[in-house]
């Protein structure tokens, strides 16, 4: 992907260039989604339009404000380290797509050794 190129007003975050077809293909790969050519066209136009609207936010000078990840001041939620019943393994495995020997079964993850 192309890095941000256009500088915004002083103190604002740099305003990125417009999202293109290659960006959509790259992001879909990261998100593990396969897109048809038609979907790439459609999503490029739609995501571009949403990001155009977001340009009002990108252009604001907010360097004096700290980002908020959350609406309330989060404290670390701690509890005593005491064993307690958890979900039944049989019930959890019963809803899995594929199971073998009390484990989730998946296709091979790495290639065959040469």
């Amino acid at each position: 992907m192309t890095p941000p190129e256009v500088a915004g007003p002083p103190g604002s975050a740099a305003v990125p260039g417009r999202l293109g077809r290659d960006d959509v293909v790259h992001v879909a790969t990261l998100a593990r989604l396969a897109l048809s050519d038609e979907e790439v066209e459609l999503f490029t136009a739609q995501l571009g339009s949403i990001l155009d609207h977001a340009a009002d936010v990108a252009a604001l000078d907010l360097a004096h404000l700290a980002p908020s990840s959350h609406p309330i001041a989060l404290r670390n939620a701690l509890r005593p380290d005491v064993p307690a019943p958890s979900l039944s393994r049989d019930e959890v495995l019963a809803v899995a797509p594929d199971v073998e020997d009390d484990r989730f079964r998946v296709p091979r993850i790495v290639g065959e050794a040469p």
Partner: protein
Amino acid sequence: MTTAIELAAAVRAGTRSAREVVEESLAAIAAGDAGVHAFLNVLGDQARQTADAVDAAVGRGHDPGPLAGVPVALKDNLCTRGIETSCASRILAGWRPPYDATVVERLRRAGAVVVGKTNMDEFAMGSSTENSAFGPTRNPHDLTRVPGGSSGGSAAAVAAGFVPLSLGSDTGGSIRQPAALCGVVGMKPTYGRVSRYGLVAFASSLDQIGPFATGVRDAAVLFDVLAGHDPRDSTSLPDACPPVAGDVELGVDDVRVGLCPDLVDGCTPDVRARVHQAADALSAAGAKVDEVRVPEFAYGLSAYYLIAPAEASSNLARYDGVRYGLRVEGEDAAAMNTATRTAGFGAEVKRRIMLGTYALSAGYYDAYYAQAQRVRTMVMRAFDRAYETVDVLLGATAPSTAFALGEKADDPMAMYMNDVCTIPSNLSGHPAVSVPFGTGADGLPVGVQVLAPALQEALLFRVARVVEAHAPTEAGS
């Protein structure tokens, strides 16, 4: 329709059986839901069993609780043990969770009877319930219109008279906007007031479960049942949570109400007129109404549509075909993940996952995600400033009455604009409620929104009750 309060009182007193109440609800659903499609799954057998257990408790002299025998519908993103919970997505179709959401346990302890799971926009992403993988819900007031969303099924189920109460979730307005479009009460509590344990995550810093009801008093009773600390949700507030239902009728004498043009001016003229009429009613009832400008709200929509997709792209990474839900086979694990997600997610979910992935990716994080988080800080400070001079804010819930099915389906940005008045309270984590207040030029319901500072639910319901009591009862009045 009989209120939930009246139904529970009759069941507790033994003058009506829970079984009879639930049979009436199931019969109404059977007669009317083919046209509305509020429900994905009606749980007749379980509901009858629960009702019989409530009646048995009453027979033994036990009190089943404040919602004894009251039929309740649940949005299908609330986990119900052994009962399909799909989030209206193909990727979770047929999934039966191995546990109940905390709110489901709380409803059961209060004597409520769950009669079904309601339709929604897939993973709560949408404002019309057209994004359901299982077909749209229709507005009971006009079947050619949308019910709003994403909790459109829960709003429609109450509006159609199928159930007196239902639960939804509100990430950017998904309880309040469908409540407005369907002419019912819908309320988003303070973030952390109601446990999110067992709510399938969309955007975790914004999501909150809340009640739908036909009236404010019923909504307050249901809120009291839902609210309280839960150690299984690390964002659940530890603060004491005194009941609010007893304060609903205290009135608005000397309450300072801020009529907020930034939550009104972008709406259609008929909606604007109703909000001003509600402000006049509050003033006549003893409140001190002043105009309060909060121009920062204008940036909420853009910030929300960066923050929520960013969190969603992370939360929805769990749908990988390994532990639950759909799997589409592939030659290796990565191909299986991609084939599963490509087949399992609908277009709006894919759009938001990609938008969020993009906003979080190297080179764009600061310009989009971090900047949106700074806007969030800006909006929170703007609320703080407004609440230095007023106790609550008043505005519209949605920019217009219900629109036609398909009208905005091909234009994501036009759809997102529906949330412009509701989003600020999600960014700040504050409570807000939509109250039906007459109709628009087309005869369809209009919702007026009351917003309050964090943890001020008692005041919120008081003001909402006065608005409700002065709502025009006939079109054009």
